[in-house]
């Protein structure tokens, strides 16, 4: 499988990358390539220009401050895994793709491509991440809640580049997935993040991937937890929390199956997050 022909540019700054994109009719930014090159080989997209971000060093780097993790968009999964504190992010990186993919795939690429069943979008939603995007008009910060759509799109505009992601600290978080054995994506995956006051859940954010094309918050599970329900009772809301009309059915699993397994995975991830937060 060969991608169709294209022009290749390798700018050394974000400004040059944005200019290069603007000058072309149909350009695409290339990070780790594990989403874009695969789509190009399948003929699903055929940019006239590929703008390789690999030479822009300022897009790489990880800063951890009291549990809050700031990540340059071009940071690979394996380099973030060296620094990520225990929690949802570390869980996701541990189970993402395989060794070779983790060496080359990038955090920003995962979030911007937002492939169905991708592992980092639900972690971004559950932890309440902030995503920074830059365009020729300037920079803007977008909450994860406003960044993804249940249909699997992001609000990144044409020519806008995701540059940095901040995953805030919480008292306990986790991510669990049912891995598709060939693709490595999640058949379904669930992430949870909780804050705790006086030994009880003060706030909970829970999000799923794989069930519908995009990542979605499981609001029924969240409210039940905040109302004092245990993990098992709260997780029972999960199948009804995803938009039924968007459930993904493919040769690997029916939408109905995906919705039904959300419940045990939600229970597991909430249990893990509560344990890490010191709640029994």
């Amino acid at each position, binding site marked *: *499988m*060969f*991608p*169709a*022909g*294209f*022009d*290749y540019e*390798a700018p050394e700054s974000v400004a040059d990358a944005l200019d290069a994109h603007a000058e072309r009719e149909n350009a695409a930014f*290339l990070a780790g*390539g*594990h989403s874009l*090159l*695969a789509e190009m*080989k*399948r003929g699903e997209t055929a940019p006239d220009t*590929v703008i*390789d971000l*690999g030479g822009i060093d300022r897009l790489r780097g990880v800063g951890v401050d009291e549990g809050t993790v700031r990540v340059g968009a071009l940071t690979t999964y*394996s380099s973030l895994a060296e620094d990520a504190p225990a929690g949802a992010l570390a869980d996701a990186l541990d189970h993402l*793709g*395989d*060794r*070779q*993919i983790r*060496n*080359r795939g990038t955090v920003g690429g995962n979030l911007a491509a937002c492939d169905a069943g991708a592992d980092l979008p639900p972690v971004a939603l559950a932890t309440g991440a902030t995503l920074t995007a830059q365009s020729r008009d300037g920079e803007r910060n977008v909450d994860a809640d406003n960044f993804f759509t249940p249909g699997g799109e992001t609000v990144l505009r044409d020519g806008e580049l995701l540059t940095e992601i901040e995953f805030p600290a919480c008292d306990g978080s986790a991510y669990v997935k049912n891995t598709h054995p*060939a*693709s*490595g994506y999640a058949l379904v995956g669930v992430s949870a993040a909780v804050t705790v006051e006086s030994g009880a859940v003060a706030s909970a954010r829970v999000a799923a991937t794989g069930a519908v094309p995009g990542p979605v918050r499981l609001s029924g599970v969240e409210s039940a937890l905040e109302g004092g329900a245990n993990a098992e009772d709260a997780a029972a809301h999960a199948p009804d929390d995803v938009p039924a009309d968007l459930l993904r059915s493919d040769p690997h699993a029916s939408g109905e199956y995906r919705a039904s397994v959300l419940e045990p995975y939600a229970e597991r991830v909430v249990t893990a997050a509560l344990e890490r937060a010191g709640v029994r």
Partner: protein
Amino acid sequence: MSEHEVAFTVNGEPETVSVEARTLLVHALRDLGYTGPNVGCESGKCGACTVHLDGEAVKSCTMLAVQADGREVTTVAGVSDEGLDAVQEAFHEEHGLQCGYCTPGMVMTVEAFLEENPDPSREEVRAALKGNICRCTGYQNIVDAVQAAAAERRAD
């Protein structure tokens, strides 16, 4: 459609090649005569094309040749100066292959993995080889081979 001059080293040898932008690294390597990396699934899943890029295992079907400019690439033919190294020898001794198509990729992943984890459990070996698919062996002998290679390297 742009053409690019790519200057890189392969198994320590400096190489310069002119490629179309869309040329994948695995094809550029094979056209240069480095036929270690095999073209398998062509979609980043099977790992038969695994090489080292600046010492890290990557899938050469999911990377453009032009992105290797200025980098060091190592294929299975470059892991040993003479004869077989401990990993290759162990795959031979433990019968860790049948048709052999996946083996160059397996060896490259294992070389990087054992640098990081010199004494892995069977579970750890299986997790490390998640991105390398074998359709012949059922993996038992591959796991045996990796553990034998690890023991051999520890003894050296």
